[in-house]
């Protein structure tokens, strides 16, 4: 029941904002959305603790059920989504959106949250797909309507790219899901995971796993299907970027764990080396692109590509450590990129553009708070121990070095080296940014430092980054059981 509360509340408020509450003032809309997201967060928290389940028929003729539950893999992502749901609404408090009504903006935020939560709750493959698609339109609206006010063409292009690219991916995934369901005879994810693909010929398993991986890879995004991400991030409003990076990308990796990895371990084993190679290429590719990227938001987006590369690398290794690494890196990236996008988005607002080549006042001199947040974010992004980014990446490299028995060891070891080299690139681009933006002697033009709701959000995110870095234990322990179940189910 508490699951339903945490789903219905944001959806209902969003619908009301879109219909009845169209004309409400910014403050009212924000208050309402805040209330909704806080209630949702409470619901999610409660659900994570009590682990209730919901199982109701929805479309019997498709065998589609409202089958919702929480387990170790979804719990962290649910929490992440709910917390950031509060965060983005809070962040909007002092920034009335441009390009449309404030009610619509808040509704879109809530709808994205709703879709993401439903995705993570879903225990039915088809329901998962439906929920997966839910976020597309609100996110698209956020990008095309509320994005960068300077360039309408870029907004349309970025929004179109986002929605078409991911629709392509999700349709591929749908095909994979349908094939999986047809072969396995059930769409219950838990049953699928227990079955572990038994009774399905390996060739079919591989094909289906490849379809699923290909579809989900778009969302993650994995090189070379990542080109939708930078424009989307660049043009999206800050709240949108945060949700995009911290929540939407996670849906892709979550799907990779739930569908191919858990349900078709044998098939996934055949696809995994390719995926791992792509992940490793993504690490280098994103890192290198960041070295010369001029736009700060695009840079952070490319760094996301690199970080998701670690996640994918960990996932592909087929070991429990790898899966743990991936899940941890997933959450860590969610927090870190959220932090970075809040900061970078704030900077873009203040500067009017995010071009690194323009000489500006050093953040350290004029806006110590933003500067500090940027330092923390980038340090976490380069995998500094004690901050969130480290554990996932280290464990990913470890997992790649010692992959499961059915993976090509030599290849994975090479990829481990690549991954480790990627951390140097991360350091290089992070320091490049710090050197041009944070450190320096210029103090003009002055910009306003972060305060009020923006600073609150930043502070919370910084704390989360620190907490995850200093005490990774609880998160790892949270996922441990389920990870063991999933990998243990493999033959």
């Amino acid at each position, binding site marked *: 029941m508490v699951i339903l509360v945490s789903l219905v509340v944001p959806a209902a408020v969003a619908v009301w904002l879109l219909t009845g509450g169209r004309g409400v003032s910014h403050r009212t809309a924000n208050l309402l959305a805040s209330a909704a997201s806080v209630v949702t967060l409470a619901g999610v928290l409660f659900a994570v603790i009590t682990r209730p389940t919901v199982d109701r028929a929805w479309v019997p003729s498709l065998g589609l059920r409202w089958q919702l539950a929480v387990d170790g893999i979804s719990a962290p992502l649910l929490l992440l989504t709910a917390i950031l749901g509060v965060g983005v609404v809070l962040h909007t408090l002092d920034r009335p959106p441009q390009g449309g009504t404030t009610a619509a903006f808040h509704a879109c935020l809530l709808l994205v949250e709703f879709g993401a939560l439903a995705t993570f709750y879903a225990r039915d493959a088809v329901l998962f797909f439906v929920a997966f698609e839910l976020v597309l339109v609100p996110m698209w609206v956020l990008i095309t309507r509320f994005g960068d006010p300077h360039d309408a063409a870029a907004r349309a292009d970025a929004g179109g790219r986002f929605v078409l690219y991911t629709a392509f991916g999700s349709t591929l995934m749908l095909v994979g899901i349908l094939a999986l369901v047809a072969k396995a005879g059930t769409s219950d994810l838990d049953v699928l995971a227990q079955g572990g693909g038994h009774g399905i010929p390996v060739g079919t398993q591989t094909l289906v796993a490849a379809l699923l991986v290909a579809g989900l890879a778009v969302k993650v995004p994995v090189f070379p299907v990542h080109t939708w991400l930078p424009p989307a991030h660049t043009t999206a409003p800050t709240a949108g970027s945060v949700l995009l990076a911290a929540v939407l990308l996670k849906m892709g990796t979550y799907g990779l764990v739930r569908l191919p990895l858990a349900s078709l371990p044998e098939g996934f084993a055949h696809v995994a080396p390719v995926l791992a190679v792509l992940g490793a290429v993504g690490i280098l590719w994103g890192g290198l692109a960041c070295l010369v990227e001029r736009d700060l938001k695009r840079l952070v987006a490319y760094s996301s590509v690199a970080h998701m590369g670690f996640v994918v690398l960990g996932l592909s290794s087929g070991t429990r450590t790898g899966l743990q690494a991936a899940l941890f890196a997933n959450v860590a990236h969610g927090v870190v990129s959220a932090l970075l996008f809040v900061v970078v988005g704030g900077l873009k607002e203040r500067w009017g553009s995010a071009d690194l080549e323009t000489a500006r006042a050093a953040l350290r001199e004029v806006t110590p708070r933003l500067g500090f947040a940027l330092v923390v974010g980038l340090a976490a992004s380069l995998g500094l121990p004690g901050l969130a980014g*480290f554990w996932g990446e280290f464990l990913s490299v470890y997992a790649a070095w010692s992959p499961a028995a059915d993976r090509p060891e030599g290849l994975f070891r090479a990829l481990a080296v690549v991954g480790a080299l990627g951390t140097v690139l991360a350091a290089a681009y992070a320091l490049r940014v710090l*050197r041009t933006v944070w450190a320096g*002697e210029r103090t003009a033009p002055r910009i306003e430092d972060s305060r009020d709701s923006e600073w609150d959000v930043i502070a919370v995110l910084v704390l989360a980054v620190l907490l995850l870095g200093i005490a990774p234990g609880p998160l790892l322990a949270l996922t441990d059981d389920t990870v063991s179940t999933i990998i243990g189910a493999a033959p």
Partner: protein
Amino acid sequence: MSGTATRLVVLVPVVAALLGLLVARRADVRAARLLAVGAAVLAVLFALAEVVGVHGSSGARTVSSIPALAAGELRIPLQLQATTATATIALVVAVVGWAVQVFAGWYLKDDDRYGIFAATVSLFTAAMLLVVQSADLVLTLVGWEVMGWCSYLLIGHWSRKETARRAALKAFLVTRLADVGFVLGVVILAAGAGSTAYRRVVQSWAGTGCNDAGACTGPSTTLLNAAMVLLVIGILGKSGMVPFHDWLPDAMEGPTPASALIHAATMVAAGTFVLAQLFDVLAAADGARWLLALSTAVTMVYAAVLAFGQSDLKRLLAYSTLSQVALMLSALAVAPADDGPGAGVLHLYSHAFFKALLFLAIGWLSVTVGGTAAATMRGGVRGHLFIRPAMFVGLLSLAGVPPLVGFVSKEHVLDAAEAGIGAGEARAWLVLLAGLLTVALTAAYCMRAWIVLDDLGSADIERHDADTATVGVRTAVTVLTVLTVVGGLVVVTPLLDLGGHIGWLVALLSILLIVGAGLAVRSVAAGKDPAVRVVGARMPSFDAGLGVDRLYVALVARPVLALAHLVVFLDREVVDAYVRGAAAATRFGGTGGQRAHRGEVAASGLAWVVAGVVAVALAGVALW
């Protein structure tokens, strides 16, 4: 008792760092200073308590820190350890940290970012203490990387200076590049052992590999060598050994307390302690030892030569650090497996004292004379009640004059090399010869420094009178001076587990070398800076580290940037071209189709229908 102390030794500076961050925002320098120094004192006390506590018990004791991590197959216990050696080194680190904090409180009293600096130093100290006390490779890695990051912040403290920004960037990137090796080394070691605990790692890699059942499965030597070579690469980077050495002199752009901290007891020396922990594994990895020996031998001589030719005394000290750290590490490269890593650790211990002393003294001096360039500092110590003896003792110790602590530890290192020769290891010859050469060179540049500081120019008593150094600073320098003098006594205590002893023959030889080199320099000087005499016009090139920086740029930075440009180009023109191409093709098809249908001729519709029917029918029948 010692368990709690062990934890607190690390925890106190961490807490101080975090609180310091909060305090730093307020403009109140005193609060920040109180916090930093107070925490440092506490850390020293706890370290002392730990030493006392450990002394009673025997053997390694592991202390849990935070709960162990459940990371799938890998076990990460995240434990600390409390042995006499770790406790002693921790005490040294704490003491140096305290001295630096005290000094920084005065040195940076007018700096608007003192609070941040103090907090960073606290964090840095904590990280080093963590590395020292860690019983877990991952904890070591944590401390290791945090130290790197703190060094970035400290070196770049004066971020309004372009040189400082660049130096910080370079320091971090070079060490980070080398850290790839460290991380991979850790990963390989952990993967072999299934755990990141030192104990398990050493057991599984260094052990004979025979279990109770008698089945011997020795670890793969290739993998072992690979792991240790990678690990050594990381350590070479952090310690500034050739070929990663160039960041360290540049790091002098940071405030002097930061230099003291980085050079004395912490970052650059941390590798020594890590390798000491893994000595049993290292001893089995011949390749890694060769790499270590080669790099350190080259570094100690090369850095000593460069040190002599520096126009800036702080940079002279920086190169001396390189040389001395190379000496420390070389002990690990050559010491026979039975002797253990004691010599290296001892040199770490002694180097911490005298190098901290030297840096603080020179920092103090620079405040009174207004700079660290040799030309500015001429005769700077004359008549100063504190700096002159401190400098004197420090330089003597650096040169390795008995009975100061530098002598004791350096002789142990040379002795380890000698023992290595005895064990028939060729690289020990290399190290011994390089070491002896270094001894002479060290004496030479110490003599040069002293000549510059004391003999040339005239003492400016007034400037000394205007000295604003606080009591704390004076205390710190005094304490370090005393420790430099009497620290050698540690060899008669059981605090450090020393495998060897001083070989008198080598000791005699080195004393002769010291005296000879000293006299030679003195004779060259004749009222001028000997370096100017010897190096002369080549001094700028010495200052620039013989242009290695340009080599870095040409060999690493440019190609990587070119690759990055290529990637961006490919990303835009190839990877994304498919996407744009698909969109364009669709749109093109749309307009084309639209043109085809524009006429809206009913007859063509009919034609399509009939053609379609025939086609469908033909297709159907043909396929059947």
